């Protein structure tokens, strides 16, 4: 092939016709990684391809399958029907649809006899049915659909001829329960089609070997790796901090101060993509931009809770290059192609180096030109975080999270799914499950408990034998007890548990009463609405809305005649600061030479801190104590993210309580933690009445943690998700809850029951496992407590230090810390007593 670059390693299978001709006709040369992947798959080797966006990753992933299918030719008359050849799995259904379009063109132009179809939750029932009996050559689908296909009685026949499984955006799938479920599905596919080869497509990650292991069956002892092809990162992005004359705020996440400067950048560029961390930040930024949009530039909003029709419109306008800017959340995170973006503005903290790199990769899909990005910190600590992220990007450092140990609730779901597909032998299934990387160290006892759980709930009190979902038959195989079980499984499949959403419907308000219903603006979390009362105003769909109430399963709103919403939407974001960036921020604080890179107002702030208190060294934990108002404060600066700090705050207040410091409350930010008390903690430490080393000892993760966890609402929420995934309670299906809450089971109450009767139940075990990495971030807290051992520095001060100002300003903005306690009820009841005593009310009867 004259087209093939000569530098490729031998032995090498050249690109066959008609592919070579098709490439040549376009003046393209196959890239080395495309040919490398082709070569590996000829040898039936599974491979991980790591490449930045714009590198032709997707085409590379499909080339092995396409060439093989092309060589196979059209079926001969009378030939038995050919089964599914290639499975492509993407985390987003939009991506699957996108690929169908992009792949369809070359296939058509080359006249290849290849049928490509998608299968997602949106695929009509009749088409799905037909696909099961008459599958296409290439099926583009999502992880959940694969699990559903496996749970079908036809699975064995359906997958028998499978040759390739392509995983797109593998890096984003692996570190989640979704990835765990997919790894289990893959272990099943390997059994149904022992010949299959996997191809993983991924952005750059911190630990590529983990993905290489993920792609292939793990042996009982040792480990196996898929091959790997790396594509160079192309031009480095140019990332800068937003330049502005404005003062950067001490705290908060609104980034209002930067909006005029952001608007100027939008004017200077062709198309700007503005990324924010949360839906509410997106809403706020969009509204603020329009407030000053004197030139009425086409600026649009795109986030997951907007009405689908509205989103499609924005996407279409984007593809036509009809927009100057789009404000977006993570719905646009992954590899969909969006017109010619020449600037990415990241508003708010980047939270992780890799996360930032992937978002910036959205701009400019030509690899050889650098992407351009501007970071906009919303407060002073975020300035440090942004600067750390810029340095990390320069070095190409990565901090993607590890995949983690396989979740047990996910395993339960898989075991039931397998049983729905075909009877299984427990020993064989155990061996099969262990080939999946996240479950490679699973012990047999835990596996058997999961099977018990799937069968009868796994309770010590065995009263459900007659209601078993799966039963062991005389032949030793486990089978589904009745068809209803399979039906239930299908309704509850998946690992993504969204908080229940309600439609937001516009109404008119006349003379104080709510009028008829208008259009639906989108959906909002029930949890958010729980805090609203009628008349509260909040921002949604780019408008300030007045909350009118909840009717049936809809949230009614009317237009609010104010520009200042009363309820500030929660703006913390769900991603904590990555450990890696936290480390860099601590290093930066400890090194005054590095402050030169920071804006003047921020370096001055740090200088002031140095003079008034101190800046901790990299490995130190600084603890300041000072009085303020009627209270005494203790502020610590662990930089481990809000979740870990919240857990730490809970545990420290318990300990301070025992030490009789009389703590009153605490507030946690991404960077620091403040606790206030009636007693002077500083004096207690200085006089030796309180031992700081004991206070911060790792042993707080023992009994204190257990005692607190049991009552924690966060653990209850974690339990609820586990219970749904494991099939203990039913998934709530939107629109089918009109009958009200009284018919649903309360997961919180089940949790309490289980806790008091079976504290070792496998589902509680799953919940605790989740809590370690999820909402409570216990693992990270543990690592921190280890790190700071012997490195505690106490500074007793007479007043607030400069570094403490941000967290001090958070106090009072936060709701009551801790659980929903009776305290609130007592307070409400006491108010009444107080008014009664003041004689303002009538007399008690």
């Amino acid at each position, binding site marked *: 092939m004259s087209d093939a670059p000569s530098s490729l390693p031998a032995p090498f299978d050249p690109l066959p016709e008609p592919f070579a001709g098709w490439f040549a006709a376009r003046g393209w040369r196959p890239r080395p990684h495309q040919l490398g992947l082709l070569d590996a798959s000829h040898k039936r080797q599974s491979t991980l391809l790591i490449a930045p966006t714009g590198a032709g990753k997707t085409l590379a992933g499909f080339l092995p399958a396409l060439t093989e299918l092309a060589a196979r030719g059209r079926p001969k008359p009378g030939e038995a029907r050919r089964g599914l050849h290639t499975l492509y799995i993407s985390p987003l259904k939009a991506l699957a649809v996108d690929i169908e379009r992009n792949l369809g063109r070359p296939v058509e132009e080359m006249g290849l006899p290849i049928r490509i179809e998608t299968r997602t939750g949106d695929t009509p029932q009749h088409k799905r049915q037909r696909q099961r009996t008459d599958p296409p050559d290439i099926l583009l689908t999502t992880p959940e659909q694969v699990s559903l296909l496996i749970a079908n009685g036809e699975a064995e026949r359906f997958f028998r001829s499978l040759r390739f499984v392509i995983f797109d955006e593998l890096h984003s799938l692996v570190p989640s329960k979704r990835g765990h479920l997919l790894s289990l599905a893959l272990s099943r596919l390997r059994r149904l089609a022992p010949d299959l080869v996997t191809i993983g497509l991924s952005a750059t990650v911190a630990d590529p070997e983990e993905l290489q292991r993920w792609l292939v069956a793990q042996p009982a002892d040792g480990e196996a790796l898929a091959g790997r092809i790396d594509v160079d990162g192309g031009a480095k992005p140019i990332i800068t901090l937003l330049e502005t004359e404005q003062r950067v705020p001490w705290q908060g996440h609104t980034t209002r101060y930067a909006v005029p400067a952001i608007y100027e950048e939008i004017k200077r560029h062709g198309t700007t993509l503005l990324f924010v961390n949360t839906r509410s930040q997106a809403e706020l930024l969009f509204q603020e931009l329009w407030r000053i949009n004197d030139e009425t530039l086409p600026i649009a909003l795109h986030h997951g809770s907007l009405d689908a029709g509205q989103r499609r419109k924005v996407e279409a306008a984007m593809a036509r290059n009809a927009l100057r800017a789009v404000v977006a959340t993570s719905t646009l995170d992954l590899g969909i192609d969006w017109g010619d973006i020449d600037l990415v503005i990241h508003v708010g903290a980047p939270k992780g180096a890799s996360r930032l790199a992937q978002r910036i990769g959205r701009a400019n899909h030509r690899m050889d030109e650098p992407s351009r990005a501007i970071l906009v910190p919303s407060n002073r600590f975020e300035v440090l975080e942004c600067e750390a992220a810029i340095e990390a990007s320069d070095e190409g450092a990565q901090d993607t999270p590890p995949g983690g140990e396989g979740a047990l609730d996910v395993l339960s779901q898989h075991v039931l799914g397998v049983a729905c597909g075909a009877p299984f032998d427990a020993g064989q299934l155990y061996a099969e499950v262990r080939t999946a990387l996240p479950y490679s160290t699973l012990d047999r006892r835990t596996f058997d408990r999961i099977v018990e759980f799937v069968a009868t709930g796994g309770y010590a009190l065995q009263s*459900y034998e007659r209601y078993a979902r799966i039963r062991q038959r005389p032949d030793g195989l486990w089978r589904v007890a009745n068809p209803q079980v399979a039906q239930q499984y299908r309704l509850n499949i998946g690992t993504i548990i969204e908080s229940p959403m309600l439609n937001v419907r516009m109404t008119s308000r006349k003379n104080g009463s709510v009028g008829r219903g208008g259009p639906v603006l989108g959906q909002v979390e029930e949890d958010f609405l*729980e805090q609203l009362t009628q008349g509260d105003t909040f921002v949604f769909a780019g408008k300030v809305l007045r909350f009118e109430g909840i009717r049936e399963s809809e949230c009614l709103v009317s237009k609010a005649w104010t520009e200042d919403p009363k309820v500030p939407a929660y703006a913390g974001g769900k991603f904590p600061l990555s450990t890696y960036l936290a480390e860099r921020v601590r290093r930066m604080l400890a090194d005054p030479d590095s402050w030169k890179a920071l804006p003047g107002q921020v370096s001055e702030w740090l200088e002031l801190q140095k003079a008034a208190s101190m800046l901790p060294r990299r490995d130190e934990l600084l603890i300041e104590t000072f009085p303020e108002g009627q209270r005494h404060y203790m502020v610590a600066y662990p930089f481990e993210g809000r979740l870990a700090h919240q857990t730490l705050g809970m545990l420290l207040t318990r300990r301070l309580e025992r030490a009789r410091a009389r703590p009153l409350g605490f507030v946690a930010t991404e960077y620091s933690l403040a606790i206030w008390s009636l007693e002077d903690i500083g004096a207690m430490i200085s006089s030796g009445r309180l031992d700081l080393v004991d206070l911060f000892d790792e042993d707080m993760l023992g009994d204190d943690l257990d005692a607190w966890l049991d009552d924690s609402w966060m653990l209850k929420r974690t339990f609820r998700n586990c219970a749904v995934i494991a099939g203990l309670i039913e998934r709530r299906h939107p629109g089918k809850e009109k009958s009200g809450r009284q018919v649903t089971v309360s997961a919180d109450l*089940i949790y309490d029951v289980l806790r008091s009767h079976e504290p070792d139940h496998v589902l509680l075990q799953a919940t605790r496992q989740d809590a370690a990495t999820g909402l409570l971030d216990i693992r990270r807290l543990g690592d921190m407590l280890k790190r700071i051992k012997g490195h505690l520095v106490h500074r007793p001060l007479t007043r607030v230090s400069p570094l403490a100002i941000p967290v001090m300003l958070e106090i009072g903005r936060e709701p009551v810390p801790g659980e929903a306690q009776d305290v609130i009820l007592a307070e409400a009841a006491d108010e009444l007593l107080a008014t009664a005593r003041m004689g303002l009310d009538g007399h008690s009867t």
Partner: protein
Amino acid sequence: MSEALRQPTGDDMREAEISLNGTAAVCACEGVLYLPDSGLMAVSDLHLEKGAAFARRGLLLPPYDTAATLARLQLAIARYRPKTILSLGDSFHDRKGSAHMPAPYRDALTAMQQGRDWIWIEGNHDPEAPVGVAGAYYSEFHTETLVFRHEPSRNPTPGEVAGHYHPVARVVRRGKGVRRACFATDGNRLLMPAFGSTTGGLLLDHPAIRPLFDTARLAAHLIGDERIYSIPYSRLQA
């Protein structure tokens, strides 16, 4: 000016004394309504054997709900030693509940029934008399001033005591809300909280509940961990 709500009394504020259509009654922290004059104790929505009912449908909830509900009922009985116990409907979670109830629970229930009258009121979950347990079964039960029925009637009915809706009140202070099961009463009629161990609830401002009451006089007696909190409807949200 609204009448000040009498706050819970007793050594430990475990009960709220109310007047219902002229009859003295006690809303107790145990989740029961006690009438001191007649010695009648009412509980509502026990939902016994709910776990088993779900298990029959393939959802294997913990099988401890019946035991927990009966244990709490035993405590309430020990505290008030009622002459009569009235279970205000939805006593069993489904029709098969009473027939399939494991023997230990049946025995515990039978022991509680010793030496007192027991009345089962018909509910939507248990439209037939329970099988294998003692007690009279009525669709509703009248006393001189009160009428006990499972579902509240749409029309104003003085002295009506009903269940069915599992009323819950939410108190909001400083942006934070707390939900608790509650007794809801305007002095004219009363909604009982659900007694069952794994039941959710409906907020008082739900369209199914609010129209039942004169909201100006409606009060919620919330069941806290150790006491009753009495809060007027108008003051639930500060």
